[in-house]
């Protein structure tokens, strides 16, 4: 119960400070769950985000559900998602009820313009950290650049980028000859654990 409450509160905090798309939540998730609590591995978060990105629904909600589930099953998923959504509900309800002219309040406009710059800086920092956490191979760099260019220049849907890179990952491991022995080990281990 204590853990569920903590998950709820952490995702409440994340929901309160995610400006922009779902990617903007990654620096805060990493700080809270990887650096501060050590509840989750850094690479796992990026995997969850990739899954969130390539399944239907709001990416941030998908990522929150996936992360919450990995921490505490279905209850964790519900705690994380409701925590993430709660600040939106509160803030938007307040704006809809009291600040019909929200957009004309210059204070928020100025703050938001600068927050966007901070988000860009935080995202660049996360991308560098992802590179440091990767295998740093030439082929990874190639996939990174290709994904970036396809998205920026050709406006390709992220779903295709993720599916394509998944296929590339499997092919690369296959041609390197890593797949067969890995299969072998995997099945042996499974058999051992069955006994």
């Amino acid at each position, binding site marked *: 119960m204590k853990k569920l409450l903590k998950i709820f509160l952490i995702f409440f905090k994340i929901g309160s400070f995610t*400006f922009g*798309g779902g990617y903007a939540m990654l620096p805060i998730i990493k*700080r809270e769950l990887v650096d501060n609590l050590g509840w989750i591995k850094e690479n796992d978060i990026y*995997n969850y*985000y*990739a*899954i969130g*990105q390539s*399944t*239907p*629904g*709001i*990416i*941030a*909600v998908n990522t929150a*559900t996936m992360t919450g589930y*990995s921490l505490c099953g279905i209850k964790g*998923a519900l705690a994380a998602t409701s925590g*993430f959504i709660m*600040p939106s*509900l509160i*803030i*938007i*309800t307040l*704006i*809809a009820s009291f600040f019909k002219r*929200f957009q004309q309040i210059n204070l*928020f406009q*100025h*703050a*938001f313009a600068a*927050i*966007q*710059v*901070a*988000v*860009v*800086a*935080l*995202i*660049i*920092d996360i*991308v560098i950290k992802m590179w440091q956490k990767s*295998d740093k191979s030439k082929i990874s760099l190639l*996939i990174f650049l*290709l*994904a*970036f260019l396809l998205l920026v220049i050709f406006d390709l849907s*992220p*779903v295709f*980028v*993720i599916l*394509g890179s998944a*296929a590339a*990952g*499997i092919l*690369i*491991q296959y041609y390197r000859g890593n*797949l067969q022995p*890995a299969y072998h080990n995997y099945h042996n281990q499974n058999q051992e654990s069955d006994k």
Partner: protein
Amino acid sequence: MIYLILFLEFFKVGLFALGGGLAALPFLQDLIVKYGWMTSAELLNMIAISESTPGAIGINTATFIGNNTAGIPGGIIATAGLAAPSIIIITIIAHYFESFNQHPLVKSAFSGIRPAVAGLIASAAFELARGGIFNLNNLQFNNNLLQFFDYKSLFLLVIIFAAIRKFKKHPIFYIMAAALIGIIFKF
């Protein structure tokens, strides 16, 4: 009855909108026309507010439309409808993912996906910077190259980035600091 309609319609949006809040836009457009809940201009205004307030853009917009249509309960129900497909689908995926994530095929797939996700996130930062720092959107209106950069934003970007690398404070610290700087220096 309106609550049931809100829940089901937003459930559909959540089910079919693939690829983030903005992918939901055409669905929302159809929705408000179909039921006559608001004008397109009002919807665009709501989306603009949803983009500049914390939280996922899709969730914010759902709360807004629901609230506008059927008060506070409407906002809650529309949001629950939008989030429900995510919770169901992801819970099923997560359930199987735990037993498959050590499978060699899945591990190989993720070895390719991870650098692509880095590219995805970098492209999101680029798109954000395109509007806020490089002024690419204004370039067609005045061909003056000196106005290519928004120097104030570029300067802030360099400072915040250096601070992130040096001090490693909580991301929320930088967001709050930027908000304050934005208000003081009128960004």
